[in-house]
């Protein structure tokens, strides 16, 4: 049986390198193609909206949580903050609660039972739909709410929530 000719090591590395580069380039291209498609096509789980005259364009997650739990009652420009919630069983409320408040909807409900019956405050109003939240936020200076990612936000301002 004839022996294969022995390929020098340096030559073999030179031959393999372009193949590796091609595979890596394909992978990066595929990833690059996939990521914008996901970000561009799928709406976010929810959007935080505020009254259009509010100067802020982004807010910290902890600040939003404090506003919805009424630990904080004013925006940084001293405007009264008026949070508005959605129904307890709304999917968007569950997603907002888990992501921003870091508590389940049931835990937030318990929090408000504690506040209501100990005389420490009352929860934000609960509205029936994204449309009702948009109408409320448009109508009340300082208002802040959240809607499903795909829902139209009308004249409200969409806030970027930073970690």
């Amino acid at each position: 049986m004839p022996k294969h000719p022995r390929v020098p090591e340096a030559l073999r590395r030179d031959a393999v390198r372009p193949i590796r580069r091609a595979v890596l380039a394909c992978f990066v291209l595929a990833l690059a193609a996939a990521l914008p498609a996901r970000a561009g096509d799928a709406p976010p789980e929810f959007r935080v909206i505020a009254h259009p005259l509010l100067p802020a364009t982004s807010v910290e997650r902890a600040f939003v949580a404090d506003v919805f739990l009424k630990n904080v009652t004013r925006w940084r420009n001293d405007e009264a903050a008026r949070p508005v919630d959605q129904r307890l069983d709304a999917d968007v409320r569950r997603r907002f609660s888990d992501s921003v408040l870091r508590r389940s909807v049931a835990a937030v409900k318990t929090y408000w039972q504690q506040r209501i019956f100990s005389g420490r405050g009352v929860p934000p109003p609960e509205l029936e739909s994204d449309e009702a939240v948009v109408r409320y936020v448009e109508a009340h200076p300082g208002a802040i709410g959240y809607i499903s990612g795909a829902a139209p936000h009308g004249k409200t301002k969409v806030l970027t929530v930073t970690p």
Partner: protein
Amino acid sequence: MLLSRRARADEPGFHPFSLEVHGFVSQGFMLSSSNNYLTNSRRGSFELTEVGINFTKTITDDLSVGMQLFMRDLGPVGNYKPLFDWFYLDYHFRDWLGLRAGRTKLPFGLYNDQADIDAARVPVLLPQSVYPTTQRDYLLAQTGFELYGYQRLPLVGALDYRAYGGTIFIDQTTLASSAVTVKKIDVPYVVGGRLLWRAPTPLDGLSLGGSAQLLRIDLDLGLNPATSAALAQAGLVPATFDGNMKYRLPAFLWVGSLEYAAHDILLAAEYSRWHVGLDVRPPIAPDQHQTQTRWYVMGSYRAASWFSPGAYYSVLQNGVAGPNTRNKYQQDFAVTTRFDINQNWLVKLEGHYMRGTAALDPVLNSNIPLGDLSRVWAVFMAKTTAYF
């Protein structure tokens, strides 16, 4: 205009400054294996009832008022007598400074101001070492002023603080007995405060803090002639003793608190010391000072939207010299379940395995000395609450 929050909120032109109305009705049942606990529980007792309704009105962004009517029956306590549980006017200068005037719940530990709120927790009974429900009238609310605030701190979380001063209203009819007439009861002062640190991300839900409270209770008592004569005969009081006695009970209480409440988990632990003095005139007994150690660990988990199990271990230890007999301690291991039937109605079932008798009431137990009651005993509780 008393309309439901959701219906009104969806109307065009809904205004955020609305009158809020909330209420609850609770009914429970207790059964104990031996000693009577809180009620005549050995035979089974339904004397575990709570009713409350409150009204809160936000007048401006910074000004609000509120009040709650409450009545309860828990064995010999309450007897369905309605009272103003809390009422206040609240002015919110800034998030870091607000002022409340009126009768406000005392912020002692994590849960004292929520002790009546069955819907706000998993167990029927909060750990009784730190939150004794029979002492609700002394520990739940004060009439006076409170300063409060919340301050977020860059990078390190937030501080939640409250400080108060005033007096405590105690209904003297709750203290009457056949041997003693309470002529006057007065709390000349109660001052205290609570400071909680709320941890930043990624420790969201973690709170650490402490509370302290200083108060004095003054009692003017009148002994009936038979009791006065017995004391005189025993040489404890002069023969001219007219039956009038003065009690002074200064007390200093503090508690350290740790809580983790995130997503569906609640873990809590608190350690407390209560220093209580007793000064009696005429001096039928030497002045006494007692230190009680009280602590618990508790956990609960919302396993499903309708089901939350929980458990705690709670210890009360009276710091009295001598052997640690059963009447000086009470250990309570509780297992509890909460079933949320719907958004406004819940049912709870709870079992307690008890060791010791320190927190029992001799009057409920035929005046048998606490040291002679059963050392190991158990309690079963069921309770249902509707709330809105």
